[in-house]
């Protein structure tokens, strides 16, 4: 159901005001030191962001994808990691909402609305990233339980979350999704955070390696119940399809911040007796940046609106993600160039945009994989008779 426009505007406005007032002026203080943005996280909980897309009948706000997209864009304009705090949670909630049993929806979704019980999404492994079929983490049935063994890589929010959407191989050699409940922290009943990954950007939010040794999951926590066994990969890829709109929105947010910074700097910095904006080489850069930004945003909103209207977006979401992430990287890089030597220092925020944008190219399907998916969908949509 579409969110009423005026209300959606007020929510986006509230987030924008907060980002301008409390996020942007403070990010640089702790971003490089990789500190968890606790105060910002608390305010995100107070806004009600964690339950924003969960249906109202489970205590959420049931916001539509377009509104959520605009919010992600605003958060990322301030600090991209904030969108990451929400993203895996939203993927988890969407998977439970769409593929969970009634009982699972009742049991999990109401707890997922206030930010106290957050979800991580764990598909990737050291040797299975793009190639999701190569998963090795295993789950064996033992009566009413499943016993999980293996190592998962790149688990964003893995340590602080209370629920992991875990993809593991089950004895039929297919992939099943388990709702792994745990206490937040470094270890819990056979689950260990074996490594915290030190990253180029996307700092402040943890991405970890997690190992499972004989960790037991109740059978009731197989996503989708008995029917869900063997369908985990399909569930995950379907959730990632909407996730791509979200990644595109993040790219648009960071690109906007980079463009704004470059636009302002180019009018302030003078060389050869005039603002650098008056040099045509700089004008051309800014014109290209603005054009790419506009196109990225429109593609992202278009995919979101189609999704809200219940249309297929397998192609559009992938295109938006591909285009917006590459555009954001180019815009951030141009913003850095426009800042000259200052762009290469931590005194200005553009170096952070430059470090943050590559993630959108890699996460939730690299550009190369995106193109493979787009090409496959093209063939489905436009076959020769």
């Amino acid at each position: 159901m579409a969110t009423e426009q005026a209300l959606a505007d007020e929510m986006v406005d509230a987030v924008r005001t907060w980002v301008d007032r409390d996020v942007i002026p403070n990010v640089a203080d702790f971003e490089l030191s990789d500190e968890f943005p606790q105060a910002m996280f608390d305010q995100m909980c107070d806004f009600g962001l964690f339950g924003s897309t969960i249906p109202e009948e489970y205590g959420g706000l049931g916001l539509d994808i377009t509104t959520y997209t605009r919010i992600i864009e605003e958060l990322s304009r301030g600090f991209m990691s904030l969108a990451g705090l929400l993203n895996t949670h939203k993927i988890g909630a969407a998977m439970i909402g769409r593929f969970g049993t009634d009982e699972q929806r009742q049991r999990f979704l109401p707890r997922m609305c206030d930010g106290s019980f957050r979800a991580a999404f764990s598909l990737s492994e050291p040797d299975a990233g793009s190639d999701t079929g190569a998963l090795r983490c295993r789950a064996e049935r033992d009566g009413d339980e499943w016993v999980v063994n293996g190592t998962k890589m790149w688990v964003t929010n893995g340590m602080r979350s209370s629920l992991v959407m875990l993809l593991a191989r089950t004895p039929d050699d297919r992939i099943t999704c388990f709702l792994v409940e745990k206490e937040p922290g470094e270890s819990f009943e056979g689950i260990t955070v074996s490594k915290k990954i030190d990253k180029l950007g996307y700092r402040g939010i943890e991405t970890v390696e997690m190992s499972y040794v004989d960790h037991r999951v109740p059978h009731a926590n197989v996503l989708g119940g008995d029917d869900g066994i063997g369908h985990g990969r399909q569930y995950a890829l379907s959730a990632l399809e909407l996730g791509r709109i979200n990644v595109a929105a993040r790219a648009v947010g960071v690109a906007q911040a980079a463009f704004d910074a470059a636009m302002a700097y180019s009018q302030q910095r003078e060389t050869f007796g005039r603002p650098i904006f008056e040099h045509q080489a700089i004008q051309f850069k800014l014109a290209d940046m603005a054009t790419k930004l506009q196109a990225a945003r429109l593609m992202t909103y278009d995919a979101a609106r189609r999704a809200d209207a219940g249309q297929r977006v397998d192609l559009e979401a992938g295109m938006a993600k591909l285009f917006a992430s590459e555009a954001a990287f180019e815009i951030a890089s141009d913003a850095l160039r426009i800042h000259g030597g200052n762009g290469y220092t931590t005194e200005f925020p553009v170096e952070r945009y430059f470090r943050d944008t590559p993630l959108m190219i890699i996460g939730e399907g690299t550009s190369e994989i995106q193109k493979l998916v787009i090409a496959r969908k093209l063939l489905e949509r436009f076959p020769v008779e």
Partner: protein
Amino acid sequence: MNVVVCVKQIPDPADPGQMDPETRTLKRDVKLILDESDSYGVEMGLQLVDAAGEGEVVLVSMVPNNEVSGLRTALAMGAGSAVLVSDEALAGSDALSTAKVLAAAIRRCEADLIITATESSDGYTGTVPVQIAELLDLPSATFAKSIEIDGDVAKVQRQTEDGYDEIECSLPCVVSVTAGVVEPRYPSFKGIMAAKNKPVDELDLAALGIDPATVGWAGARQEIVDIAEAPAGEAGEIIHDEGDAHERILAFLDDLKIL
């Protein structure tokens, strides 16, 4: 504990406002927002109601064209309901007329406490709060930096140049709150959604029993005779340090009577 908070809805100061050369007042036909000065009063009211454990914050606002967008922000923060006064005959109201209207609206609310800002961001006369108190025959305290309710007394810390006064006022009373003394909360998304369905009592002059001849242009006893552009800020003085910079800065501040 029912706290009435007077909230003014003003043109967004971020969009340069336009003056009407005819009436020499601010054009108010744009989208109005909650005056930031009043967001502190709303926050304080909400905290007092929370502390009391019962009651609600009731907003009172006088505005052209039944505009509610600024009220909605305060309702989304948590205020329970609002009284909105609009009437064509109110155009041109001076501060005293405004106070008459607000006082009449407040009379309908059974308020234990009435909160205002010390001054609005646009009109800036700072006279409305005490006028309301006078018209309602209530005690008033100005420049509050904190309010605590103890039985039927409001304990107010009143900002002064050197510190603050501690004063007590019997309830009900009118207290004007200084900007920046509390951190106004951001509206939650639930609050934004709920605000849509909160009661807003829309009243005109007839409903308040006010004679239109006593307010608006008709009743204004204050006239704005001239308006002028504010002079552009002048370039500051640059002091180059030749060993005596600190002395020159001190002398400069001394001239401004800042020290």
